């Protein structure tokens, strides 16, 4: 019987790809803050996004070239998203939303490269992002509306006695936002990568007949690219919707 550790080390183990490996040991104040493969890929993502945007827009041509067109497509997509979902007051938050989208998009797509690491496949990463968004949005809500923001938890026009039921429901619904936001991204990325790994394992194990799972794998890979882009988009659009709720209160 193979032990759990031996299983995890096997190249066919579907969860092996999610292991965090420290690349440079580091400890500050008793906390392990080693530079891991997850951190490395976050850094690569951040560097690539910055390089892409800086280089693509460096010419500032009136008639955009290929690279500038790509940068403009991303920019316009997110600008439209912010305008449609948050409204005019949302323009202040455009840099944040755009950074969020590009980071997730590049991170998810880079994670599909062989031997890379998908940082969004760890719930602690997505949950940290979600909780930061959640707290920020709540603070923005209170900053704009003051204590009036608490009206958010009680629908307009409902009889006063229903507050006993409605306020807890709205409160839990509101508190469940960071969970659903983070779980959605994390689960989609993890499930996709596990599926890819399992089917890739079949390709090797089946020998010549492995051509069939290989064909299937091509389809799944295409689907995973779609999921990677779509989930970055969904995460961002939900952030916009939460912002809209905080600014306009419905």
């Amino acid at each position, binding site marked *: 019987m193979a032990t759990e550790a031996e299983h995890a080390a096997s190249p066919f183990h579907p969860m092996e790809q999610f292991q965090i490996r420290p690349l440079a040991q580091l400890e500050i104040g008793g906390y392990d803050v080693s530079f891991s493969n997850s951190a490395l890929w976050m850094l690569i993502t951040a560097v690539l996004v910055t390089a892409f945007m800086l280089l693509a827009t460096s010419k500032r041509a009136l008639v955009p070239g290929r690279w500038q067109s790509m940068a403009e497509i991303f920019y316009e997509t997110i600008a439209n998203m912010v305008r*449609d979902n948050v409204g005019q007051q949302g323009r202040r938050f455009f840099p944040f939303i755009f950074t969020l989208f590009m980071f997730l998009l590049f991170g998810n797509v880079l994670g599909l490269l062989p031997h890379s690491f998908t940082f969004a496949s760890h719930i602690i990463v997505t949950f940290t992002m979600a909780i930061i968004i959640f707290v920020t949005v709540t603070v923005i809500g209170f900053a704009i509306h003051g204590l009036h923001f608490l009206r958010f938890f009680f629908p307009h026009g409902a009889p006063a006695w229903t507050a006993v*039921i409605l306020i*807890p*429901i*709205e*409160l*839990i*619904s509101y*508190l*469940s*936002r960071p*969970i*659903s936001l983070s*779980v*959605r991204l994390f*689960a*989609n990325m993890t499930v996709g990568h596990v599926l890819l790994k399992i089917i890739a394992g079949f390709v090797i194990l089946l020998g010549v007949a492995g051509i069939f799972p290989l064909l299937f794998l091509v389809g799944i890979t295409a*689907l995973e690219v*779609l*999921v990677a882009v*779509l989930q970055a988009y*969904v995460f961002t*659009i939900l952030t916009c*919707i939460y912002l809209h709720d905080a600014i306009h209160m419905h």
Partner: protein
Amino acid sequence: MVPPPFGVAVTPGRGGLRGLAEQCKAVVMDDPEQLASLGELNERLAVARKRRDAGRAPKGGVLSSQGASAGFRIAVEILAALVVGTLFGFFLDRWLGTKPWLMIVLFFVGSGAALRNVIRTANQLEAERKRIRDAGKTGPKG
């Protein structure tokens, strides 16, 4: 000389393409038999288009995966509300020593919140769908 398409000679040259089109129109409009066969063609085209569109829309690969993602989105919303409600109850119980009552009550409150989340998500999806449809109507850049 163009071979007569409708049994009547049409002479090109005078008035260029537009003149040719007007001549053809005049020929068709004058002849009730030609008009009837054009109407028939129109009907057949309409039927063919409908068949083509029916085969396309609901089955498309991208669309069906969008359906899956919408379903997943709603499932996660339900789960999140239930988990938050139940965990809140669990920890409040531990804190206040009222085991297991708050957990039970907040589980049901969480179910209500889950329903609220589902309705809200469905509205969002509908709004997104509408926006995409409207954008498609006014052109690709809308």
